[in-house]
Every structure is written in C-alpha cells, then in structure tokens.
C-alpha cells in the first residue's frame, strides 16, 4: 500500500544566533509525512522539536538560520521559495500552524475578528465584508466556541487561554490547509482544557482529512493523538515509527526511558521517575551521540561518532550505535 508522501524533511540543520553564542538547535533531522497521517514530534524542552515545526512554515524567529537541509512539500522546495511566494502559496493555504502560547499569538491591540477576517480575505480573496464575517463566524462555530459574535469583537486579554487557542485553530484552518502544525498547543493550558483541545483537533482532523504534525513533550499525549511518533533529543532524531510500534517496542534507550517516565495509574508508584542528567550545551559541536552522557548503555563509540541509522521494521528507524545495520 503505497502512501503518498506530502512532506519530507532531510538533514535539517538550524542555528540560533544569541548574545551567548550560536546555538545549534537542530542537527541533522529527517522525517517523512504521508497524506492524512498525524505525526508527533516528541522531546524535552530544548530538543529542537518546535524549531523543526516552525521551519516548515518558515515562521522561525529573526535570529534563526537554516544552515543546511531540505524541506519538500508536495514537490515544492520550501526553503527555496521567496517570502512573497511563501505567503501567497503555502502559508495558511497549504500549511498552517498553531502556536504554543495562545495569548501571545494574537496582537493585543486588535480583536480576534480583525485577524480572522484578515486571514480569510487574504486567502480566499473575498472582499465583501459581510461574507468574510460570516465565514469567520462559521470557523469559530467549528471550533466549538460559544457566542462567536462576541469572540469576533473581543480583544485577546478578554478571553481565556482555552478560548484563544480554539480561536487560533479557527484562524489556522480558515483557508482550508492540508497540513496543520500544532506546536505544543496545550502545554500552556489547564489539564481539563487540554483534553478538550486534543479532542477538537482529532475531530477536525477527521472532518477535514488533515495531515498533522503535533509537537509535544508529553509522550502520553502523543500516544492519544498521533499515528506516528518521532523522538527528538538535543537536535537529533533518535527514533521514528508508528505509535503502536514505539510504545510496544521502543528500541532507542532514550525512548525507553521516556516511556518509563510516564506515570501510570495502574502501577503502584512510589516515586516519579526522571532521567538523571541534563541536556548538553547546544553551542558546542558534539562529536558523538548527544545522549551518551546520560545513557545506560553508552559505549566508547557513542562518544566519538554520530549514531548510524538502523531500520528496525516497516517505517521504523532508530539512530543508535547499539544496533548494527
């Protein structure tokens, strides 16, 4: 069953230029997404997962630079497009994004309706204000927001985080994109709202046959929402596979540790588990595997050379020295 690849990221390297030095946030990440799939990028803070997601729509902060690599969407080389072409052809229309902090996404001096209408009229070319407004209301209803007229006229500081995030999803989907990138959309929300937003995303995905890239630090969330999982650490992709494969049969030592750390209601847990140690300094050049200092199975070769790819099964890749090709 050949599935159609719509997005392919190859050997992506992204650097951030900060006063403290150049941070190499993404070091050679590669992944593939097929049509209709939802893929989760899972990793700790600082693993580079958000950076990869932002790079796909070229919404990186001004001090970020794509040093190397390729991003191809439906045959279009994303990184080669001009800004104008990005905005005209890709952003919002084909690929859209939802960000982490719902309050900061919206300009405090404009109402939600202002932004929503602007995006709608930009993409659908509709000038008729009434039609644009009605489309906006429809989108807000779609994300299950009560009283959409009020929301249209509200400023960001007047709405709760959960409502703003729903509105953001409405804006992101208003031009009917094919791929949605969700960058930790629930991290800053209450647990109860989290579940609602996740359900909403799942439902919308089905309704609009969206392909999705879901970025999170929470493996449990990944398990619930996504078909496939990619595990990232310190800018490197360690494991990529279907959710069932990875949860049932985690191969990479880091993935295994992550799964162990998920608190389970069934087991009697005396202590919450965590992985000892911390992220390496991303400003330095790491010759070997970045997880080596914290890995239980680290060998000498792990510290000196980067881990090779190991095909563990159908569309299940691992980067680790433990497994020889």
């Amino acid at each position, binding site marked *: 069953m050949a599935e159609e690849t719509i997005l392919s990221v190859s050997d992506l390297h992204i650097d951030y230029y900060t006063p403290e030095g150049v941070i190499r946030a993404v070091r050679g990440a590669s992944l593939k997404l097929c049509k209709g799939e939802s893929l989760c990028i899972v990793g700790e803070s600082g693993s580079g997962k958000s950076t990869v997601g932002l790079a796909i729509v070229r919404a990186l902060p001004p001090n970020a630079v794509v040093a190397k690599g390729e991003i191809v969407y439906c045959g279009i080389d994303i990184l080669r497009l001009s800004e104008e072409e990005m905005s*005209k052809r890709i952003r919002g229309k084909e690929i859209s994004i939802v960000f982490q902090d719902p309050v900061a996404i919206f300009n*405090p001096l404009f109402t939600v309706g202002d932004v929503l209408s602007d995006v709608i009229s930009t993409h659908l070319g509709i000038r008729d204000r009434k039609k644009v407004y009605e489309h906006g209301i429809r989108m807000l209803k779609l994300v299950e927001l009560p009283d959409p007229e009020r929301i249209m006229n509200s400023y960001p500081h007047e709405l709760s985080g959960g409502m703003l995030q729903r509105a953001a999803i409405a804006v992101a989907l208003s031009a009917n994109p094919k791929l949605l990138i969700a960058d930790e959309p629930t991290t800053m929300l209450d647990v109860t709202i989290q579940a609602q937003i996740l359900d909403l995303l799942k439902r919308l995905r089905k309704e609009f046959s969206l392909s999705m890239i879901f970025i999170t630090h929470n493996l449990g969330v990944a398990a619930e929402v996504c078909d496939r999982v990619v595990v990232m650490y310190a800018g490197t992709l360690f494991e990529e596979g279907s959710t069932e494969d990875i949860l049932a049969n985690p191969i990479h030592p880091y993935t295994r540790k992550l799964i162990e750390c998920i608190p389970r209601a069934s087991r009697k847990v005396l202590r919450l588990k965590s992985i000892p140690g911390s992220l390496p300094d991303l400003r330095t050049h790491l010759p070997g595997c970045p997880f080596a200092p914290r890995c239980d199975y680290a060998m000498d070769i792990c510290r000196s050379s980067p881990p090779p790819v190991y095909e563990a099964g159908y569309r299940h890749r691992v980067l680790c020295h433990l497994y020889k090709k």
Partner: protein
Amino acid sequence: MPISREYIIKRTVSLVFVVLGVIVITFIITRVIPSRPELLWTGPHATIEQIERARRELHLDKPIYIQLWYYLTDLFMGNWGVSWRTKMPVLPSILGALPATIELVVVAFVIAIAAGVPIGMSAAIRRGTGVDGAVRVFSVVGASTPVFWLALLLQLVFCSWLGLLPAAKRVDEYLVLSTGFRPVTGFYLIDSLIQGNIPIFIDVVRRILLPATVLSLYPMCLSIRMTRALTLEVLNELHVRSSIAWGIPRTRVLYRYVLRNVLAPVIASLGLSFGYTIVGAFMVEIIFVWPGIGYYIAMSLLSYDYPAVIGCVIFVAILYSIINTAVDLVHATIDPRVKL
C-alpha cells in the same frame, strides 16, 4: 473602545490637583523665595511709592496663607498682573499670542511624527545595515543640537544667503491689507484656507516652514529612536510571526499591525517631548520673530518684566498639564489594555 466616564472624571480631578500644585509652586517661587518680592514685581525703575503700592497689592504684610488665598483668587479671576513693559494685562496678551505658538508647535509635531515614525520603522526593518547606522547617527546628533543655534544657522543660510524663504514674522502685512485677510481662529493656515485666500496661505506656509522644521528636529529624533527600538521589540513578538505564518503578507503585517503597536507608545512618549518642544518653540519664535508666547516671554525676560514671565510660566505649565492629560486619554483610546 469607548472610555468610561469614570476614567475621564478621574483624570480631570487629578488634573485639577496638578494645576493647584503648579500654582502653589509658582507661589513659592515668586513670593517665598525672594527676600523682597515686590521689587521683582515692579521692575528696576520703580519709585518708592510704586514699591509701597506693590507691597500692599501683593498683601506682603499678611501671613502666608492669606497671601496664597489672594494669589489663587487673583489667578482664577483672570487678574494675572500687568506687564509693565507693555502696560497691558498679562493674561489677555498671553491668550492673544497663544494661537501663533500652537500653530507652530502643531506643525512641528506633524512633521516630527510624519517623518520620524517611517524613518524609525525602516531603520528597524533594516537593522544593522548602513541605512540603520546613518539613521541612528542622525537621531543622536539631531537630539544633541541646540535648537536656537540651528535656527540661527538655517536662517542665515536659507534666508540671508540663499534668499529662498522669508526670515521673519508669520505673514506679510502688505498681503494682509491687499487681500483683506481677517483671521478668525487665529490659526492662519486654517483661516486662509477657510476664506479661500490662497496668496496668504502660500505666504504663511513659506514662513512657517523653516521654524517648524527646526523645531521638529528634536521630537523627530526622539520619535525615530523610540520607533526604532519599539519596532525591534514588536518584531520579536509572537503575534507578528503568527500573522505572517497564517499567510498575511509581510508588508500588511508591518503597516497595519506593527504600526499600531508602535504608534501607541510613541504618541504617549511624545507628551514628554512636548515640554521640551514648547520651550524650543520659544527659542525659535525669538529668532524668527514669530509673535507667539515664546516671543512674548523672551521680550519680557530681556526687560526683566517679571509679572509677564511668571504669567507665561503658569500658563504654559497649566497648558502642558492639560495636553498631557489629553494625550493620556488618546493613548487609552488606542490601547485597550489601559486600565480604565
């Protein structure tokens, strides 16, 4: 974003207190600090009888709080003293000179914002390039330049040497007579347009151009600096990236969204530069013989005409407070986050 009535009332009340404070401070400066206040009031060529009369009129033998009471009531009743230079009451003279100064200051501010904000934004967008560097140097040098010095030099170059623009006054009296121009509001630019009097309009524009431009330099440089810094900050904020990420074209994001984020604080900060611009206007008026409050105060200072000087100080201080309050209200209208 309607401003609530309570907010307006709150600000008005605070304004009243501020004005009272201003008056009290001037009272202290003019009556308490000098050892013989009546001498200041009568000027250097007064006779003994005039000095004695001044002592009585100023109620200087009475206790301080009675003096303050008379001071307050005099001010409120419009009795601001008589300028012994012009022999005319101070307050009407100030009010008569006011429109000229306001016209000059308003035009200067319009130039400052119209030039300053775009320049500041372009410098921010092109951060680190030669354009940015040139703009930053310009804004620092411009803000360090004494306005009276620049006025002198530009007047020398443009009026004396190049003969391009007239050097003095607001309007040519000959033209006024020959075209029958009659000022209504006191703002010659508006009046001449209302009356369809084009020759006067052109004349006024030619005469206001140089002084207003010189005056605008300082607020312009402040606007440039503020706009540039603010634009850099705003460009880093998530909502700019999100708007772009959702597909809104970059130019639109800049000129519709970022501009408003930047404009609100810039206008608020202009209230501060307004104080310096008013005093700058004084200097400019002297040099260009512009018949405004600055000219009046400068002439009064030269002749040691104390009542006129203090009258101007009080008037301008009150005006400044009112304008600051107005600017705050405007800012509250633009920025819905201000607590009302």
